[in-house]
């Protein structure tokens, strides 16, 4: 089911939570809404579900205008952040709920409901736990039940609000892989909200990066990571270092020195240079133009050593990664050049 969000605006007591957002979601796609808290990602998800109604704009499910439809009519599978399992019902009753509340005309017979619920329980790998109550399950198991419950109504689209937010790192990784598998098997159009960029990059076909009620960039993980379209996306997705620079004569200058990086044609004047700390090459001092700085601090991060450099007396330090056995110590002078970088106009 294609979903089209058309210039949707949502205000909560005159505070705009979403500002004229448009988005096309393709059928069968697994898409992540990614952004810091307050960016409007959950609001967008709830608008698609029909749990909120837009102040302005329309939402289409396929060719059908779903904007004024209620959440019941939209037939979406929604998985809540805190699971929202019905605590007075067993796992089986939770999963059966969506089918058992259907009007008599479309409600499957009891045995059929049970059969389908057990099938879903099997899909989420919880066979044998149908008689348990939600309190008797672990966080990861509850999340699986919540997903099975949402899938039971054969939704047109699956919406997940921070599905792994409340789980510990280990379980989270496992469930991530497993959600991808379920998605590939069932083929549902799936939208999930997360503030964890690693999760979004690993799991999603496409990412929607949001900030302050607006969409900053939409693209595949590669596009968003390698070609961020602005300073926000660059610094939000992945590790980044940035420093103020000047652009002149199609070159980038720091403190009156060209640093050997060509600038895009259109940019000129004050700008900000962004690069990834791990994506730099070290340059022998004196051999060509480069950025040079003095090590102000260093720490070990996994297999590399991350150092903070003071470049050109600039108090804003930049970070780069060195091999962990690099001999650099405090006050050592290091010259480097980013291998890949972006320059964005200042402000």
């Amino acid at each position, binding site marked *: 089911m294609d979903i089209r969000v058309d210039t949707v605006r949502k205000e909560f007591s005159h505070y705009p939570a979403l500002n004229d957002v448009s988005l096309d979601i393709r059928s069968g796609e697994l898409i992540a809404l990614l952004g810091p808290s307050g960016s409007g990602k959950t609001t967008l998800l709830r608008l698609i*579900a*029909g*749990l909120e109604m837009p102040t302005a704009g329309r939402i289409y499910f396929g060719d059908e205008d779903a904007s004024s439809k*209620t*959440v*019941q009519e939209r*037939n*979406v*599978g*929604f998985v*809540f952040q*805190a699971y*929202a*399992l*019905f*605590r*007075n019902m067993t796992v089986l009753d939770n999963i059966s*709920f*969506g089918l058992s*509340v*259907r009007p008599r005309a479309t409600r499957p017979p009891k045995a059929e409901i049970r059969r389908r619920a057990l099938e879903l329980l099997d899909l989420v790998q919880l066979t044998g736990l149908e008689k348990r109550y939600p309190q008797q399950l672990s966080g990861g198991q509850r999340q699986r039940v919540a997903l099975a*419950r*949402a899938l*039971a*109504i054969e939704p047109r689209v699956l919406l997940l609000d921070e599905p792994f937010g409340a789980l510990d790192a280990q379980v989270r990784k496992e469930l991530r892989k497993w959600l991808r598998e379920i998605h590939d098997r069932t083929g549902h159009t799936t939208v999930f909200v997360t503030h964890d960029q690693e999760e979004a990059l690993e799991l999603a076909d496409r990412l929607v990066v949001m900030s302050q009620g607006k969409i900053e960039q939409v693209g595949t993980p590669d596009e968003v990571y390698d070609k961020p379209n602005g300073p926000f996306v660059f610094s939000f997705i992945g590790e980044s270092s940035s420093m103020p620079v000047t652009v002149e004569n199609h070159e980038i200058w720091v403190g009156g020195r060209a640093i050997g990086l060509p600038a895009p044609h259109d940019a000129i004047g004050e700008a900000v240079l962004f690069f990834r700390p791990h994506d730099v090459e070290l340059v022998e001092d004196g051999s060509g133009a480069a950025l040079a700085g003095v090590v102000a601090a260093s720490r070990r991060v996994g297999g590399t050593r991350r150092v903070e450099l003071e470049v050109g007396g600039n108090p804003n330090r930049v970070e780069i990664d060195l091999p962990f056995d690099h001999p650099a110590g405090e006050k050592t002078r290091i010259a480097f050049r980013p291998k890949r970088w972006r320059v964005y106009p200042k402000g």
Partner: protein
Amino acid sequence: MFEPEVVYDSRRVIPPADHARPTTERPWVRRLLIAIAIAFMALVLVLPLVLVFTEAFRKGADAYFASFSDRQSQQAIYLTLLVAAIAVPLNLVFGVAAAWCVAKYEFWGKSFLTTLIDLPFSVSPVVSGMVYVLLFGAQSALHPLLKAYNIEIIFAVPGIVLATIFVTFPFIARELIPLMQDQGNTDEEAALSLGATGWQTFARVTLPNIKWGLLYGVLLCNARAMGEFGAVSVVSGHIRGKTTTMPLDIEILYNEYNFTAAFAVASLLALLALVTLVFKTILEFRFGDELAGTRRH
């Protein structure tokens, strides 16, 4: 020479009293506080209760049970049960509806409504009775209309029911509001997203979530409905055999120096209180976490 006194010995054994947690009192303080509490409770709670039963049985069990064969006392018991049977279910519906509104929706004037729900707690019951007399009594503007349709409210059963409903209104709503606020909306949203109608959501998700809190509120509401004196006294008119409830009947009997009968009826009310207390304790013990958060009455 060594002077061991000045060497700070870190292994010095500190007496347990100094070790005690900062929030724990010394034993003698603790015992004193407990003694005061027990003495106070014995004096103002247990002693009167015991007295009610001793007075009721002073002339023997026969006299005690004979008190209940009095037609007027039977009528008072009947009326009390009737009033509670009307007031409690109505307040159940009102209370759930009010709690639902306050807990699940944002709307203009919400805090005013919350204050209004508490009003019966802060107004003297006598005053609430007076309000109904002013509203429906012989001096009111409504009176001719009521008279034309032969509707009697003041000095009749409807007035007693109204006054009781007013006085007991907050019990259920007050119990449910914090509970429902605590539980939030997500369970309901989940049910709706799965296609349930509003009514199905209420019956199958909301109600089970609040059932113990609701029962608790009903118990308190019922105890108050049966025991209410002030408001009912004003609107009832004390017509014996017609508009006296148990508390009013007790007063009349007592004023007539019929102590055995007065205390016999009083013992019924006291028993009701004890039964309520037992149920309340069981509920708190068993379902404490499903009542209003961790709050206890």
